[in-house]
């Protein structure tokens, strides 16, 4: 009986060797040594699924679990979040809740509690999933990815990080080591909403993340709108933002901004909804969140 289970590819995993580097440099050296034959494992959720389905067959799995430098959260002006920080840790982090509650809200809607206990922010961001719950918030917060490779450290603004379907700006031997989030300007209001149609822990039909900085007279000093699940990558609705920036947010203008955000999407049609439906839901939820944000 157990032999039959062992041979069933969906219980067992393909063979691989397992390395646990203690430093970022060791991990980069391993990537250099094994190249395409190696895969990095952060929280493990994605890699385990890919292994189980035989969609990848690396010779070596390089675990990032023991690299202390990838852990830790500190807020010193800006927020530095180690790549191996789990979503659940971000949700309960008091310093992050004070500085960047939008990110805490987003992390709180990733999957379900057990998934949040395993998945890491860096692992998730480096996946480049268009349906990421956290990427819209990071985009709205103007975050940066910090990557380290054989040539040293590189800072990559997230606005240029997500390049294509599951394709990021990370180079072959680079490791995402942390996310940097600038502390939002005083008075910034933020809103996050993950709209799911099937079940609470599913991927979204659309995810909206907004940062809004009011001027003294109440008009819009700055605005950033991050959208998830409605394009091949997570996106910012920059043309919609431009309509509102510097203007007084009347209901009519908000409706225009929401329509422009919807026009910026290129949603897939899948189990979370048709492309048309998700475009329309983008318009609805951007409008609703903006209205909530603008009303004091």
């Amino acid at each position, binding site marked *: 009986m157990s032999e039959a289970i062992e041979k069933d590819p969906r219980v067992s995993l393909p063979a691989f060797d397992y390395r646990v580097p203690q430093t970022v440099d060791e991990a980069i050296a391993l990537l250099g040594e094994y190249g395409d034959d190696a895969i990095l494992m952060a929280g493990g959720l994605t890699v385990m699924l890919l292994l189980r389905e035989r*969609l990848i067959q690396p010779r070596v799995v390089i675990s990032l679990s023991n690299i202390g430098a990838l852990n830790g959260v500190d807020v010193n002006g800006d927020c530095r979040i180690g790549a191996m920080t789990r979503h659940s840790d971000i949700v309960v982090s008091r310093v992050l809740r004070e500085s960047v509650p939008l990110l805490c809200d987003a992390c709180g809607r990733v999957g379900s509690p057990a998934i949040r206990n395993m998945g890491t922010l860096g692992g998730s961001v480096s996946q480049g999933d268009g349906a990421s719950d956290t990427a819209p918030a990071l985009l709205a917060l103007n975050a940066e990815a910090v990557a380290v490779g054989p040539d040293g450290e590189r800072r990559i603004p997230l606005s240029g990080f997500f390049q294509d379907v599951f394709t990021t700006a990370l180079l072959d031997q680079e490791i995402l080591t942390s996310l940097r989030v600038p502390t939002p300007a005083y008075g910034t209001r933020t809103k996050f909403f993950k709209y799911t149609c099937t079940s609470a822990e599913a991927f979204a039909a659309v995810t909206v993340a907004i940062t809004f900085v009011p001027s003294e007279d109440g008009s819009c000093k700055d605005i950033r709108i991050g959208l998830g699940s409605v394009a091949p990558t997570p996106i910012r609705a920059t043309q919609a933002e431009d309509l509102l920036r510097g203007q007084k947010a009347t209901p009519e203008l908000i409706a225009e901004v929401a329509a422009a955000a919807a026009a910026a999407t290129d949603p897939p049609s899948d189990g979370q909804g048709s492309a048309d439906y998700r475009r329309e839901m983008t318009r609805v939820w951007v409008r609703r969140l903006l209205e909530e944000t603008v009303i004091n």
Partner: protein
Amino acid sequence: MNRRTATSEIEARGMRLPRRKGAASMIRELSVTVNGVTHEINTRVNRTLFQLIKEDLHLVGTKDGCRQGVCGSCTVLVEGVPVRSCLTLAVRCEGKHVTTIEGLKENGQLHPLQQAFIDEGAVQCGFCTPGMLISAAAFLRENSNPTEEEVREALIGNLCRCTGYARIVRAVMSLGNENR
């Protein structure tokens, strides 16, 4: 050249890879404490915590549901925190404390949550129940007096096809009320 993530390779290939001939995983010595008992186990590194629990330790309470981390029936506690054993490598539990449903008992008595599930009739086929209890027990430790909405949110990662969740939620809530 940008590194395409593993998932973009799937987009490119769109199909499963054949077994690599002659491949075998390295073997590691593992020391892991399960339900208070420390085990020294030699395991191939490509085995999951779920396989260790079921096949090495013959603890049958943890269930094999979806193998994708969605259904929650494989949920166990590692260092007191609910995780998916089907998506956890056994070797990642070196030196850690694991609690399965068999370890939920306190001093030979059913955990109050287990008793509440019985009292409220929150078990039909029972397949989701171990994972449900593990998740709920960990949740109640963090939030001893939850609202119904908080309970429902805490259990979104544990799917039940039988009960419609009503009695499960009632059972969890019944423990909260005792503290009010």
